[in-house]
């Protein structure tokens, strides 16, 4: 069952990721990217990583992409859709992509232990939110706190900047 779900969502994710670059209409591309994020979240859920999966939906599909779509809708889409396909650029892009894939395969093959099978991760008996929290607060407390302060400062800064521009 899980294997079937893995293949369904992987294929969906890769197909919609390809659709992001293949569509000429930016709204179609943005919606394909949303679909790709949702499929990725589903893959996390099949790995019992509910927290990461739902954060993927909440942050990327729910917030970032809404802003993307918001901006795209204000553009002149007709000019974008009319643009012709550039054969030379396409061929160049495919060549770079092919070279990159070959390079990745070679590098991964040369890594020690790349053909070994590793045991599955052990279950802790707690929910994964608990595990993520414990790891962050016990193992990485200082970096976590610093990132928290950084994000808070950025948020407050955004509010102050937007307030000043209104005056």
């Amino acid at each position, binding site marked *: 069952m899980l294997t079937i779900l893995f293949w369904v969502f992987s294929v969906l994710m890769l197909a919609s990721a390809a659709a992001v670059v293949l569509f000429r209409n930016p709204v179609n591309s943005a919606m394909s990217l*949303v679909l790709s994020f949702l499929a990725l979240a589903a893959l996390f859920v099949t790995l019992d990583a509910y927290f990461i999966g739902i*954060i993927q939906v909440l942050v990327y599909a*729910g*917030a970032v992409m809404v802003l993307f779509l*918001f901006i795209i*809708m204000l553009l002149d889409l007709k000019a974008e859709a009319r643009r012709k396909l550039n054969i030379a650029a396409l061929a160049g892009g495919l060549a770079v992509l092919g070279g990159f894939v070959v390079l990745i395969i070679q590098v991964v093959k040369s890594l020690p232990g790349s053909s070994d099978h590793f045991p599955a991760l052990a279950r802790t008996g707690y929910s994964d939110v608990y595990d993520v929290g414990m790891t962050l607060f016990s193992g990485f407390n200082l970096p976590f706190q610093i990132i928290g302060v950084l994000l808070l400062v950025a948020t407050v800064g955004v509010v102050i900047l937007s*307030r000043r521009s209104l005056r």
Partner: protein
Amino acid sequence: MPSLDLFLQPEIFLAWTSALKTVVILGIVLTMVAYSVWAERKVSAFIQDRIGPNRVGWAGLIQPIADGVKLLLKENFVPAGVNKFYFSIAPSLAMVPAILVLAVLPFGSTLFGVPMVIADLDIGVLWVFAVSSLGVYGIVLAGWASNSKYPFLGGIRSSSQMISYELSLGLSVIPVFMITGTLNLGEIVQYQVDNGWMVFPAWLQSGAGPLEITTDSGAMFGLSLEKSLLWIPMMISFVVFMIAMFAETNRVPFDLPEAEQELVGGYHTEYSSMRFALFFLGEYAAMIAGAGFIVTLFLGGWSLPFIPDGSQGWVWGLINIGVFFAKVAAIIFFFLWVRWTLPRFRFDQLMKLGWYVFFEVALVNIFITAGILAYLKS
């Protein structure tokens, strides 16, 4: 009987009970949607000193069915120049997230030992936020695909409003997690059963307070210092959350996306027939899901003081379900009451209120809660 054993195998039992719960909840909520439209018209009539619908059935009670039949039979008109694909999927995209939210709401304690929640997720609260944040796509795409200026303005307004108020919505519930220490909605309700509702923490299962009364059932009534201190941030959270929920569900005083006087009908101006009805249903379903979320987080979910849960017998299980939906109905009545009492905000006032007032209040409230919890622990 081998056939009965098959039904009681854990996985198969989970599958058919979940399917049954899904069907029953969908039925209850869709009926509530239909009758909250009827209630909206009756309440508005009462507030404006009119009679309201009273022709179809006794006191107009069959009116929702008549409305449904009318909407189904109308022509499903697609204007020229729309983006057909997005135009036709947008109503479903607006409706589905509102329904999906219901999957994690605990609508009762237990009935015959089966927990009365469709999916008991450990990340229930995040599920609600993640899924309801997808609801904005339906509205944005409807506004854009209609290729018409009023729907477009409505869609733009709606998306900026929902993005802005999602922040205060999310920040205002963080104090609840800090106190309960869980993201699981069932456990949040259980915490309120043991320690009193978030907005009215006046009974305790254990622990002493200066004003305590012991009853026969062992439950105690009273306020301790701890409870009264935590009650302050909880009330702030509750008020911010409630107001942000009004903005999220596009209700008056924040119904700018469909302000009739300015935008004709907002993002669904170009829609007709069942596609329009889906927007309408989605809006009311989102309101019911939001009310259920408020009840679960702040008003004790299915619990009522001194009433036992479903483990004491199936009658109590049914009563708990009734209590949950009664509380939801009360919140919906409050939504309607506000709609027909308050005037609408201006759009810049709405955005200012969200970004300069509620966002800061919710943020400061987190620090207040952290301070109180640190004081109580020491």
